[in-house]
Each structure stands twice: as structure tokens, then as C-alpha cells.
């Protein structure tokens, strides 16, 4: 009673929009006049963040009237969100034939001039501060690229290894994800993001030995003292005698040239046929912030996002176009490879660069204005999702005032990317595991928040008793009054064909995993319902069961026949208070009656599974019966943290703790080669016997 009443009343306390706008303008002003400091990497992020804030605010509050923008669409837009949602499936690209439909009136190519005009429009609408914008636009306009890259022969085969070895835990088999520790079965490669080095060590059957070190850290001032550049590493791949390092190259200028800072993502490809002496083959660069990357056979995909916030100038292409290219030679992405979402988009691009790592040539580059920052990639397609928060927008139709996720699909053909489809669903996603494609259907789980503006009578009454400038009862406040979860099934043209809505009110999604026709997801507030959903009929997804147990799983992993492993937190049934890390094994052999077969409380307070890219800290191998993850324990007295790498097995229905190995920080990874288990971090590699976890050897970096 008391709690609900208090909640209701405190919900009504909100800062006014004007105030929010003012604060952000202030932040923006400050960051422009700020001098470069000692640690430029953070500084750049800082500037970027502030810019993001400003953009989000301006874009959101002022509302860009670009949905009527004629160049990209002939069709007018309905002001009714609902109508847009239902009727706007104008398919521009046909994913099956990769040709576009002339009947929709977008047969002409996008040109730089069109893009420029559009950016100028965005800029003007931001500065006018008008708020005529009412609806989310829709429809992806541009042209499908038909350039087919030549298929390169992959000449070198990897040296055959007798010992089996583990690889980075990925979402889709066959699609490798970059990480800070990699192995090829003989050597272990460890990336140190801060130092900008890759240490290469010979695994040597438990007696690891340093072999060589690749270093590219650069931190320098230009001769006139105006420009400061700084390069740090981020991610790495190892495959077919190639070492791929993705790093961040920041350049800052004191004089404010080039907006004061610029960031590009550099992909260096090294030849490691002789790991003692790695040689750089080629470098590729693209502008923007790093999102993620994937490696499918020899095709490397690097994804970035780039935002523009200054006045565009038609002559200076860098003020409104993304760049990519080889080495230092960056060129604007060709007109034919750029397309744009219509309607209300942030002035930011999703940029995808495709490179063949064997021949070290660029196969394709694409940019999409207004596309997302979370990617799901399988062997045939790339999906990019953009969370669009609606609290910032004023909508006349409150019942439809929810956050949405805008989706883009690119088709992969021999490393060449083809614009395939676009779509949208209600709600926002958690991470890449929220998305999946199976048998031609795309499935997505979202958390939907509904914002309801308070009716004008109530707010008038209230503003009568409060002062006119009161932030508490401002007229145009929007209240998020409802939070539910949804699952959508979309066809290959990203049209919604089936949906489940209003699942688990007031909870949010903590983890998702799809396994063929069955989807699992966990929501949480106090107890953890594990939902299993039957997706065999795409038009009619059905909840098969909802298992309520205390705690929640932050990561789900199919484990053998009829079992699902969950790693997460245990929580008090009554209060929802978390009690430490938990392993759960769910019996899913009958999806209608899923139950928790066994659980185990790990002696650590926190795992890193919930963090971004947290699934890479986990190693699950059924054949070797290993479930391993890194975790941390706090000593509340000395406030010290103890990092460990926990190794478990699962046998005869119970979790068995095999070992708790010494870890050196959050970025600890485990891997095995043959009969040796290695715990790797950028400080050291320690080798253990996989049978009894006795220490064999170690090497420090």
C-alpha cells in the first residue's frame, strides 16, 4: 500500500524538458572550450559522450522535421504512429534478388548531394529548435549495390594440430567473434588493450614460453604541437596464419581543427606464418566508434558507428560522410554504397567494412544513415539494431508512445554486402543474444516501456497550485507507466509475422537464447521466470512454460541433449536481493515442463557475464565437461577484490567444482589445448593439468 502510493507519487517528480535541454547545452558548451588533458583517449570519449548527449537531446526535443524530406521518399508519412507501424512496409530492397523495386519510386541512386542536403536539413532543424516532428519515419531508401567482389582463393591451410583446443565462446557457430585472448592450438595470443601490444606465447604443453610481441602503441604530438594522436587496441582474431588486430586511433587538435578530435578504427592484418616474426601485411581504416566485428571463414567484418553534429559543408565531405580505406588513404564511402533510413533518425551512420584476411583486400564497404549499434551476424546475414528511445519525443498518440528498435538487414554474399531489408519492432533489446535467425525467420526479444503523457486537465490543476516554472508539475511531462516484454517473429523482409506481447509486466529481460524452434529468455524483478517459447509456427509463437525460481540467469547456453545451462545471480526469494553467483542446470527435454534440475552457488560475488561482451568470459565445453568463467569476490573489510577463474564440471545431475584458479583481473580468459588448461590475461598465462588442475607452468608479461 504505502510502497505503491509512494512509488506513484515519486513517479510524478520529473525535471522539466527545458531544464534538461539547458543542462545539456551547458555540458556541450563546456566541453568545446575544454583544453586537451593528459589522457587523450578518455578525453575523446568524453567529448564524444557530451556530443552524444547534445545530439540525443537536440534531436529528440527539437524534433527533426525530416520525414517530409522529399529526396528520399515520394510517399508522405502518416502522422499516426500506428498507421506507420502497420502500413509502412515499403520494401526497397528485395533480399532474394538483391534488386530494388522501381514501383516504390526510389529507383535513382543516392548521391552525395542528396545526403548533403539531408544533413543540412537535419542541422537546420536542430538549430531552429522546432518541434513539429510527430512520428517515426520508416523505410530504407537507397540503392542495392550489385558489385560483386572476386572470390579469393584461400591458399594457406592452418598447420594441422593433433590436440583439440577451445575457441572464444560465440553466439553463432562458424561466426567467430573477436576477443582479447585467442589460440590456434599451438600458440596463445594475448592482447593488452592499454599497452597496445599482442604477446605471442608458445603453449608448449604446459610450459608456456614468450615468443614475440607485436606492439603498435603510438602516442605522439605533431611537430607544431597542435595535434596529438594516440592508438590503443581493442579486439583480435587469429585465423589461417593471420593475426587481425582492431585498434582505436584517436587524433586530437588543440586548435579545434577537424572538430577538435577524430577517431578511426584501424584493422591491422599481420602474417604469422612464423609467429617469432609477425609482419604487417596491410592496414585498413574506417571512421567512427567501434561496435563489433565478426570473422566468417576468411571474411572479416568490422562495424563502426559515426555521428555528425556540426554544420555540414558541401565541399568538405568529412562533415557529413563516413570514410573508409586502406592504410592512411581514406576516401568517402561511395554514393552507391550509402543508404538512409527515412524519418526521424539520429545523424549517425552504421558503417560495415568487409575485408578478405588472406589476400588483405577490401571486399566491400557500406554505410547506412540512422542504423544501429548492436549487431547479430550469422553465416548469411548481418542484422543491425538501433534502440530509439521515445521518452524524448512528443507523440500525440500516447497509447503508441513506446520505445522502438529499428532493424537493418544486410545479406552477405562472398564477403560482399547487399542491403536486404529494414523493419522495426516495439521495445528495446538487451544485447546480441536478443536476436536470432532460424529457417529464414528473424526472432527478437524486447523490453517495451510505454510512456504516457499526463492528461492536460490533471496537469492544469496541478500547475495551478505549483509555481509556473515548477519542474515538478510541468505540462508536457511523460511518464513511463508500464514495462512489459515482447517477442517478435519477422520474415525475411523483416515484416512482423508473429508476436507475443505483454509478457512479465514490470520486469526486464536479463538473458535470451534461441535454440532452433525453441526460444528461452529470463526476466527478473524478484524471482526469475525462465520462459520457453515454441517458435515452430512463426505466425503463432506460444509460451510453453514459465519457470519461477529465485535469482536470474545472465547467460544461457544449451548444454548437451535436453539441458540448458544458466549462469547468473542467486537472489532472495522474498526481497530479490542478490546473494552471489549461481549456476543452474535446467532440464528442457520437455519444453512444456522445464525445471531446474540442480543449482550451485559459486563462491564469488560477481561474474562478468552480465557485462557487455560478457559471454566471452565464459568457456563451456561439453566434450571436456568444462564450465568455466571468471568472477570476483570482495573482501568487505579491506574492500579488496579477489579475481578467480572458476572451473566446474557437470556429472550425474550435479555441478562439480573442479578448481578455483587464480585470476588477474576481470579480463581473464580460460582455454585448453589438448590436456592442458590455460588461464590467460594480459599479465600472465598460467598452465594447469586439465585432469587434476595442478599447476604446470606460467609466464609473465
Amino acid at each position, binding site marked *: 500500500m504505502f510502497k505503491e502510493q*509512494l512509488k506513484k*507519487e515519486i513517479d510524478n*517528480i*520529473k525535471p522539466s524538458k527545458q531544464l534538461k535541454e539547458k543542462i545539456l547545452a551547458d555540458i556541450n558548451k*563546456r566541453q568545446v572550450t575544454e583544453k586537451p588533458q593528459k589522457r587523450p583517449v578518455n578525453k575523446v570519449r568524453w567529448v564524444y*559522450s557530451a556530443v*552524444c548527449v547534445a545530439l540525443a537531446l537536440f534531436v529528440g526535443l527539437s524534433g527533426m522535421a525530416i520525414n517530409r524530406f522529399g529526396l528520399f521518399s515520394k510517399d508522405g508519412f502518416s502522422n499516426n504512429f500506428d498507421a506507420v507501424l502497420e502500413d509502412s512496409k515499403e520494401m526497397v530492397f528485395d533480399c532474394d534478388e538483391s534488386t530494388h523495386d522501381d514501383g516504390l519510386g526510389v529507383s535513382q541512386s543516392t548521391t552525395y548531394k542528396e545526403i548533403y542536403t539531408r544533413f543540412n536539413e537535419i542541422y537546420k532543424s536542430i538549430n531552429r529548435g522546432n518541434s513539429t516532428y510527430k512520428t517515426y519515419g520508416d523505410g530504407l531508401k537507397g540503392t542495392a549495390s550489385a558489385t560483386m567482389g572476386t572470390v579469393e582463393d584461400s591458399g594457406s591451410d592452418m598447420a594441422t594440430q593433433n590436440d583439440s583446443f577451445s575457441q572464444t565462446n560465440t553466439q553463432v557457430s562458424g561466426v567467430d567473434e573477436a576477443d582479447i585472448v585467442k589460440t590456434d592450438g599451438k600458440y596463445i595470443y594475448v592482447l593488452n588493450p592499454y599497452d597496445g601490444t599482442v604477446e605471442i606465447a608458445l603453449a608448449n604443453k604446459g610450459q608456456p614460453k614468450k615468443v614475440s610481441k607485436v606492439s603498435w602503441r603510438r602516442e605522439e604530438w605533431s611537430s607544431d604541437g597542435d595535434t596529438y594522436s594516440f592508438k590503443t587496441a581493442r579486439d583480435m582474431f587469429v585465423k589461417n596464419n593471420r593475426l587481425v588486430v582492431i585498434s582505436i586511433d584517436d587524433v586530437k587538435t588543440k586548435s579545434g581543427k577537424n572538430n577538435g578530435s577524430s577517431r578511426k578504427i584501424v584493422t591491422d592484418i599481420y602474417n604469422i606464418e612464423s609467429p617469432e616474426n609477425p609482419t604487417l601485411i596491410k592496414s585498413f581504416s574506417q571512421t567512427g566508434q567501434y561496435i563489433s566485428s565478426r570473422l566468417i571463414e576468411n571474411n572479416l567484418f568490422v562495424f563502426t558507428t559515426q555521428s555528425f553534429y556540426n554544420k555540414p559543408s558541401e565541399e568538405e565531405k568529412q562533415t557529413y560522410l563516413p570514410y573508409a580505406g586502406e592504410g592512411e588513404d581514406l576516401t568517402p564511402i561511395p554514393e552507391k554504397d550509402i543508404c538512409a533510413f527515412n524519418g526521424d533518425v539520429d545523424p549517425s551512420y552504421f558503417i560495415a567494412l568487409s575485408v578478405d584476411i588472406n589476400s588483405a583486400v577490401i571486399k566491400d564497404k557500406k554505410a547506412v544513415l540512422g542504423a544501429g549499434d548492436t549487431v547479430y551476424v550469422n553465416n548469411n546475414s548481418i542484422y543491425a539494431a538501433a534502440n530509439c528511445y521515445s521518452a524524448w519525443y512528443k507523440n500525440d498518440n500516447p497509447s503508441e508512445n513506446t520505445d522502438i528498435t529499428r532493424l537493418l538487414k544486410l545479406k552477405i554474399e562472398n564477403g560482399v554486402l547487399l542491403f536486404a531489408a529494414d523493419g522495426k519492432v516495439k521495445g528495446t533489446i538487451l544485447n546480441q543474444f536478443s536476436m536470432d535467425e532460424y529457417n529464414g525467420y528473424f526472432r527478437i526479444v524486447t523490453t517495451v516501456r510505454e510512456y504516457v503523457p499526463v492528461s492536460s486537465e490533471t496537469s492544469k490543476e496541478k500547475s495551478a497550485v505549483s509555481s509556473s516554472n515548477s519542474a515538478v508539475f510541468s505540462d508536457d511531462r511523460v511518464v513511463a507507466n508500464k514495462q512489459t516484454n515482447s517477442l517478435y517473429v519477422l520474415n525475411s523482409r523483416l515484416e512482423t509475422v508473429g508476436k507475443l506481447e505483454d509478457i512479465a509486466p514490470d520486469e526486464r529481460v536479463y538473458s535470451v537464447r534461441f535454440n532452433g524452434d525453441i526460444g528461452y529468455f529470463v526476466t527478473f524483478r524478484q524471482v526469475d521466470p525462465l520462459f520457453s517459447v515454441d517458435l515452430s509456427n512463426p505466425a503463432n509463437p506460444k509460451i510453453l512454460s514459465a519457470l519461477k525460481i529465485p535469482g536470474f540467469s545472465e547467460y544461457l547456453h544449451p548444454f548437451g541433449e535436453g539441458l540448458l545451462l544458466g549462469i547468473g545471480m542467486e537472489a532472495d526469494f522474498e526481497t*530479490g536481493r542478490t546473494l552471489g553467483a549461481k549456476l543452474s542446470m535446467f532440464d528442457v527435454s520437455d519444453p512444456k515442463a522445464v525445471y531446474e534440475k540442480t543449482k550451485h552457488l559459486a563462491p564469488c560475488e560477481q561474474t562478468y557475464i552480465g557485462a557487455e561482451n560478457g559471454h566471452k568470459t565464459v568457456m563451456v565445453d561439453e566434450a571436456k565437461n568444462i564450465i568455466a568463467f571468471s568472477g570476483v569476490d570482495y573482501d568487505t573489510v579491506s574492500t579488496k577484490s579477489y579475481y578467480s577463474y572458476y572451473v566446474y564440471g557437470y556429472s550425474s545431475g550435479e555441478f562439480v567444482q573442479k578448481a578455483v584458479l587464480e585470476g588477474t583481473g576481470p579480463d581473464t580468459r580460460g582455454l585448453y589445448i589438448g590436456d592442458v588448461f590455460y588461464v590467460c590475461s594480459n599479465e600472465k598465462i598460467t598452465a594447469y593439468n586439465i585432469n587434476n588442475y595442478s599447476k604446470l607452468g606460467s609466464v609473465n608479461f
Partner: protein
Amino acid sequence: MLRESLCTVDLPKTEYLFNAAKAFESYSDMVYRLAFVRLCNTSDAEDVLSDVFLRLIKNSKKIKSEEHLKAWLIRATINCSYSVLSSAYRRHRADFEELSKQKAATTEESVLPLVLELPQRFKTVVYMYYYEGYSVEDIAKLCSLPQGTVKSRLSRARQQLKLQLKGEDINV
């Protein structure tokens, strides 16, 4: 008084990409509400909101995770509101204007005015426990207080509220 070191939680440094836009979108309301509950005054709460986010931008490199961000913001809000409370202006002036406004705007069953009239040290724990849904342990960490203190503050706050609410049970 201005301690910002509270968040000693160690989380991955490389994995979390700080995004001030998202931070502001997600937490501006929370910061404002907490400030309002502590200060009972819209203009002071507005000052604190602006202060906290400027500090966040300055300290963005310290933010290591979403949880850390939220904890940091709560801590910074508490700190910033301390400096408002201890300002000479505030110390020499009694401000019941906002409170009476609150009262006028509310109905019979309203409980917020009662909460706002609680002593400062009780208000914060009540807000964090009942509104943000933090556990006693979490509140203790966030406010650098022993758990027992948090518990006793909660229970005393409940006693006071119970009197005002004429015996209605507020245990949740």
C-alpha cells in the same frame, strides 16, 4: 564531505562503453527525484541535477559499468545535495514553501509529504529502499554506512510514518 570514491566495485574496464546520452536518458529522473526528496525544493533539485551530470562528464573515464554508473550517480547526488544543505543561504533560511505546495497538491492518501518531512538521514534510505528497490546491503554500500545503521534508520522511519499513517502497516 564530497566523497566520490564510494564505487570501489571493480568491473571490466574495456567492455563498458560510457555513453552520456544513455546515462542522461536513463538516470536524469532518478537523480532529480533523489535530490528532490532530500531537498524538498525544485530549484535546489534542479541545481543538483545539473551539477551531478557535469561531474559525471568530467569523471566519465571512471565509470566502469552500468551498475557502477547508477551507484556513482546516487552517490554524487547525495554529495551534491550535502553541499546545498550546508550552504550558508540554506542554513539561515527556513523553506516550507515547497512543502506546503506539495501538501496542497496532494490528496488524502498521499504519503510523499510525510516522507519529505522525515529527518534527512531517514529520507534517503526510505527513497532508496522503497522507490529504487535497493536492498539494505546495497544501501549500506552506497551510503558508506554499516548495514545495522541502515536497518535502524529504516525501522525508525517506518515507526514515524506509522504514527502519521494512523497505524497502517507499511512493511513491504
